[in-house]
């Protein structure tokens, strides 16, 4: 604090370092005091912990069949009731968060990498721009998760194929967002300055352009995470996700759909968990956008 009070005594290097630290601190403080980000963050942490500690938390095995307690309603013994095979719905839901988290993380990472690659390439290499963007436009012409459903159906039902299908579906919009923000940054004066002092292309791209174009990408990836959790459930529900008896949340909801007349609890609980997780991610995304990208607060689209 004393250093801040008399900046005259600092060298330029020290001053830059101090400014950087101050910026990081205010950023973290602004995030953690942003109510919706904080709530969302807590939800995500709880969700992640549930998935990681599934072996400890789940009272029964997720595929353990128990013919003496078929379609039992929620009770002290089975908090979320049991399904048509007498499997404990709570345990299946807990293990199901694992599948959701795994798919969500992989889709986010792959979408992030592919989106950045394609977006940067399109904005940097002029003759590729048209080709890449028109291809992405074509992929975005398939409404919602329809393309993912068809891809997963063709590749065959499995977790890996679900990840591939969802990555192909969510990459186009992400690449578009990266391209748009890279183009904005490219036109800025400090990029010209970096080129002028002889920085290499790679250095300019990674150190300056991408670093400054990151905010919209981070916000977008938060939403991709949320949409992937829902999309995984849709794929599983339709029978093109990780095949049963794997305890994915969508599979459990599908079981619930077939027992809808006599056992409401099978479908209701896994869906609630998805809704809470997605709500958390949406809150986080909104908070991040408020802080990182104040111009675009308010509405957003769902893909």
């Amino acid at each position, binding site marked *: 604090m004393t250093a801040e009070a008399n900046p005259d005594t600092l060298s330029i290097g020290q001053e830059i370092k101090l400014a950087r630290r101050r910026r990081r601190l205010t950023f973290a403080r602004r995030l953690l005091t942003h109510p919706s980000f904080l709530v969302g963050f807590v939800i995500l942490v709880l969700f992640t912990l549930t998935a990681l500690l599934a072996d400890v938390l789940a009272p029964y095995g997720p595929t353990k069949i128990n013919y003496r307690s078929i379609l039992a309603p929620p009770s002290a013994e089975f908090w979320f009731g049991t399904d048509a095979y007498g499997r404990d719905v709570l345990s299946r839901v807990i293990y199901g968060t694992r599948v959701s988290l795994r798919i969500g993380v992989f889709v986010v990472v792959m979408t992030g990498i592919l989106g950045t690659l394609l977006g940067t390439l399109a904005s940097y290499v002029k003759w590729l721009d048209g080709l890449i963007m028109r291809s992405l436009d074509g*992929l975005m012409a398939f409404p919602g998760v*329809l393309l993912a459903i*068809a891809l997963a159906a063709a590749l065959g039902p499995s977790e890996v194929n679900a990840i591939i299908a969802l990555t192909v579906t969510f990459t186009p919009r992400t690449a578009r967002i990266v391209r748009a923000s890279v183009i904005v940054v490219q036109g800025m004066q400090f990029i010209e300055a970096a080129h002028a002092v002889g920085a290499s292309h790679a250095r300019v791209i990674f150190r300056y352009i991408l670093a400054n174009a990151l905010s919209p990408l981070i916000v977008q990836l938060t939403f991709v995470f949320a949409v992937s959790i829902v999309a995984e459930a*849709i794929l599983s*529900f339709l029978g093109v996700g990780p095949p049963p008896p794997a305890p994915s949340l969508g599979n459990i909801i599908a079981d619930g759909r077939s027992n809808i007349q006599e056992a409401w609890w099978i479908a*209701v609980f896994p869906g609630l968990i998805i*809704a809470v997780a997605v709500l958390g991610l949406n*809150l986080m995304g909104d908070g991040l956008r408020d802080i990182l990208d104040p111009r675009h*607060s308010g509405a957003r689209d769902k*893909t």
Partner: protein
Amino acid sequence: MIRFLAYRLLSAIPVLFVVSLVTFLIMWLVPGDISAEIGGIDATPADLAAIRERLGLDRPLWERALNWYGALFQGDLGQSYTLNRSVLGAVMERLPVTLSLAAIALMLATLMGMLLGILASVRHNTWLDQGAMVTALIGLSIPDFWFGIVMIILFGVWLGWLPTGGFVPLSEDPVGWARSMVLPSLTLAITQMGVIARMTRSAMLDVLGQDYIRTARAKGMRARTVIFRHGLRNAMIPIITVVGVLSGVLLSGAVVIETVFSLPGVGRLIIGAIQRRDFPIIQGGLLITACVFVFVNILVDMAYAWFDPRGRDDS
């Protein structure tokens, strides 16, 4: 306006080309030998070879692509493996159900969303604003297909007010048709209205902060006229953009919701085809739905140009 329409139609061509190419290539992604699945366990190698030849599976990829496009330009999407009829006929027969479901849901979502958004913006920073935005966000976070199941449990199984699924054609029994459409369209609308509510709110807040709104208020104009004539009208453009995006989300949502409510639309056709490994139907359903979406987007752009004359000429 005509020039703008022509430009939009032309720019749809590369999109449709990619759409059709991707649709064609999906078939090629299928691992293993499709003929073995069609022929069944009892098929002899000669049977399989015959199936492959009939479907053109023994040809190289480029030749199959040429055949696909050749047929496509004549409006031929191939024959279903299992339904014993043309893909185009099967998809077109189911399309009205999907389209009407998506359209009703879009209208409901727009109506409810704009209402919530206007309410929130007019009562900015009050509990009403907060409540409307929390409602919108919760709606956005609920998976629609699951919400459909909850609606069935609530109104179908417990209260018994509405059917738990199934479909009655409009021409046979309008009341039965309405009863079969209420839950699915409400499900979609409630889970999607949040997008519109948030966009309406932020667009309205932008507009309501303008000087001309203050002037209108200052000269003693009625609050309702200020909000709707001067406020909403100028906030329409961002809202229309979101409605356009939403039409795609709702099309895909309708496809999934049909399965939940057992409605005989394109979605259930596709899902059924996935279970029977009837790939031409999957391809056809995907292609037609994407074409509908591209067409709807052109309509949205036209609406956009109509509301905002500035964008008309600089294409």
